[in-house]
């Protein structure tokens, strides 16, 4: 139980990623492939986020106290109190990249459909050969 709780995220990450990877490689429908791709990417994002989580920590916005003149009061900041910002930044980028890829993939899908009148990879390959 202890093990599951400690590593539950990572196990789910692996399963999600592999599900996505399998979908990308094995599924035939182009839209499904793209959904699988997005699932694969979210799996990776979850991996990063899980590694950046800290038990009992807050979101990475520093609680800043100010004096009456609105000057920040100097305080010591404890790393333990805030979740890891670095992994979050990386994943912000990854999400944006993901949606960009998704969009481009969808554009291609539309073009493939108007070219071959099908979204089924096998069918398209059949018409080509």
């Amino acid at each position: 139980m202890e093990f599951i709780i400690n590593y539950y995220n990572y196990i789910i990450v692996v399963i999600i990623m592999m599900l996505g990877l399998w979908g990308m490689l094995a599924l035939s429908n182009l839209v499904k492939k793209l959904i699988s791709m997005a699932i694969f990417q979210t799996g990776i994002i979850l991996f990063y986020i899980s590694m950046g989580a800290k038990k009992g920590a807050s979101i990475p916005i520093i609680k800043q106290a100010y004096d009456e003149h609105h000057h920040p009061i100097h305080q010591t900041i404890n790393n333990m109190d805030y979740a890891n910002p670095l992994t979050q930044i990386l994943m912000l980028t990854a999400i944006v990249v993901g949606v960009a890829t998704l969009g481009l993939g969808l554009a291609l899908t539309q073009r493939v459909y108007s070219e071959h009148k099908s979204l089924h990879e096998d069918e398209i390959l059949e018409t080509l050969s």
Partner: protein
Amino acid sequence: MILGFDIISLSLILLCAVLALFIRDLMGSVIVFGAYSFLMCVVWACNGAIDVAFTEATVGAGVGTVFLVSTIYSTTRIDTFKKNRLLKQLFMFAVVCVVGVLLLKTVTDLPQWGDAGSPANTHLSAYYIENSIDQTHVPNVVTSVLADYRGFDTMFETCVVFVAFIGIFSLLRIRKSKTKNAATTSPTTELTLPPHQEVDSLIIKTASHLMVPFMQLFALYVVAHGHYSPGGGFQGGVILGASLILLAVSYNFKKALSILSEKKIILLVSLGVLIYAGIGVICFFLGGNFLDYSVLHKILPATDTIMARSHAMLGVEIGVALTVMVSMYGIYLSLSSNGRFDKGL
């Protein structure tokens, strides 16, 4: 950090993922995928990644789903199934299993979930948390790292959005004068709409009309207040884009293009990245390295080197928001009209 909640939502996520892949109706699949994304937001919020959750909610679950739906409308929603693929699927399953086992074996080697002392949580990230306020005056560490410490990354991230838009636009855009069956349609930029599009619900129109200003106001807040609260250029930009998409959905393309024409879209998308890169270039001319905002205090009034960083971050966030807004909008227009820019969802 509610552990049980985390576990439950993760299990649900898994369920959604499986469903999304196996539902035969593509529309259903997309909707389940949208749910998957929202659940994912929840998990990320639980893990303390509020900015990521915010972004996923707007980008992944929001705009991403819209894109998928647009595509399904332009193509087909039926996923035909053929038995002859089974062998390939089994083979891929074996491949994936091997990779999966490889990864599962690492799990025990990884630091435990939520371990604040793991290398990933101490080395660089600790530096950012401890120095963000002193070095940039920005309490939201995510923003300061995003726009300053790793600002160079973010510039290219914006570029990715730009590229996606230009790519999709150039792939899909069809100018009717070029196509063979020009007889059936009128010139595209001057759009006449097919009659069924006119039968729009007044309720939807009014509701969206009412919603849009608040959405945009909120978006501007998200952009501007990114230094202090979750959010920033990406999230705000996507919300702004979403408000425009809402208009385009509830009204029609003519209305949508009257707000932002094709030419303006291209112009603004480039302009957003240009603002970002331009700030970097100004740093060149002021004698700093690229994106070294601190030198900007030479031209910004009443700022020291640290506040200059803070101000410049706002500048780049605006650039990001501009690009993201317009490109999300542009991508939607391209995808939903299959590049014809005449009618969408």
